[in-house]
């Protein structure tokens, strides 16, 4: 029997009309303040005139580490870290071959963890070397 797929942390990303995933922030239409994650009030002018703002699908790894003792439901080892997506430094699980600080990443839709009941998916960072 196929396990159902569940999307996790859904408030942090959207899919475009080609079903490509992107991380979503917010931008105030009144004062121009940009923030992540999306919220309904502006962090600067406190106004309500806030629109969703797609963040770049490509970024650079700021930091990363390998988790070798996994929390419940996760299978070690796996990598997590922060990537700079435009001006924002954002957490994500990292896929790719031997990723390093400074590597480029692409934001992709992939498996976060597989439990007994479901496959959980969301955005991940896929690291690649600059010359690919």
């Amino acid at each position, binding site marked *: 029997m196929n396990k159902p797929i569940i999307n996790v942390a859904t408030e942090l990303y959207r899919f475009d009309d080609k079903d490509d995933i992107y991380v979503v922030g917010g931008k105030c239409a009144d004062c121009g303040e940009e923030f992540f994650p999306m919220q309904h009030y502006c962090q600067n002018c406190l106004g309500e005139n806030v629109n969703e703002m797609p963040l770049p699908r490509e970024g650079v790894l700021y930091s990363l580490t390998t*988790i070798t003792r996994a929390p419940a439901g996760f299978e070690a080892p796996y990598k997590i870290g922060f990537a700079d997506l435009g001006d924002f430094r954002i957490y994500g699980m990292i896929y790719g071959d031997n990723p390093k600080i400074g590597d480029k990443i692409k934001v992709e839709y992939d498996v976060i963890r597989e439990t007994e009941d479901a496959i959980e998916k969301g955005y991940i960072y896929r690291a690649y070397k600059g010359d690919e």
Partner: protein
Amino acid sequence: MRDVYVAGVGMTRFKKYRDEKSVIDLGIEASIKAIKDAGIDKNDIETAYCGHARTGRLLGREGGVGQGILWRIGITGIPVTGVSNFCASGGNAFREAWISVASGMYDVAIAIGVEKLSERREAGKPLTSDGLELLSSMGFTPPTQYAQVALRYMHEYGATKEDFALVAVKNKKNAVNNPYAQYRKAVTVEEVLNSPIIVEPLTLLSSCPIGDGGAAAILCSEKFMKKLGNNGHSCAIKATGVGLRSGVFGKHRDYLEVKAEQMAASDAYEMAGLGPEDIDVAEVHDAFTPGEIIHYENLGFCGKGEGIDLLKSGRTEITGDIAVNPSGGLLAKGHPLGATGLGQIAELVWQLRGEATGRQVENPKVALAHCSGGFSESPELGESQITSVILLQK
């Protein structure tokens, strides 16, 4: 604001108590010791603050832990405030007690910190934390924050795993002579590096243990301190600087430059009319070995990128001019979250009085306690850092 004194302190040994003692029992033991150390009557206490990050008796997140402790030792009817603010809960409780006396509202306050982690439901699995549900759903665990600090520090300054391991070697050596410490065994760099990896590059011996404990302090006004006398202690201890700051949210957050810490330290120094050069002994938040290095820098003990050099110079040893973590720190003394901040206060009061037998720093006059709580990211995904810095003087 009036001057505030720390008339008495007390703490349990930090360790895994499991079925032996409840979180309430640990709070009772610490409170009774602090009351006796101060030489006050329990009925002198007019207000109470109790710090705990996670645990009520039922291991949930319920409040009322402070009332639960105090009614069992016959202290009832007074205002009791619960303080829950991650790893800084104890330091935060001390600060609130300090304000209650400094403001002139009360003459005598008790600050309590307790935690029991050994019975949590997912024992053996990495600790998660409140407000991290969103990050946790994507595989985040709290130790990864300091792991990334370490790797980023290595990337920027060329530090090595061996350098960080020296923090554990120093602090675990100090704990050998501290009867309150959870682990009292000296280790070598090789043992630190060869212990099991928790999160790259942090090994088991680069990380604080999970444990339980309680600690408490009696704070009072100058008028009350004069009436009380020193209860046989060599001197009176004044709390001259109290800083508490939360993190500053920015687009490119720097993992190595902790603004909350810099501001909390700056507030405390300014209040006391002191600077980092005046500190003789400090208890800092070495939850993981790289933490102590970046705390040196953010508290102003040295410049940015100079933390490893300061460590290697020997100046932060017990025999150094700025002794850091003579108790063994979180790494060896232990880190029962809410109890940690008040455990630091207890150690530093003993150091200033000259009562820290076996690990005594030579005649310290100014002491600094530092707790770093929360995370650079979350509840939920914002900035949740909270740092307390407290200065004590004799």
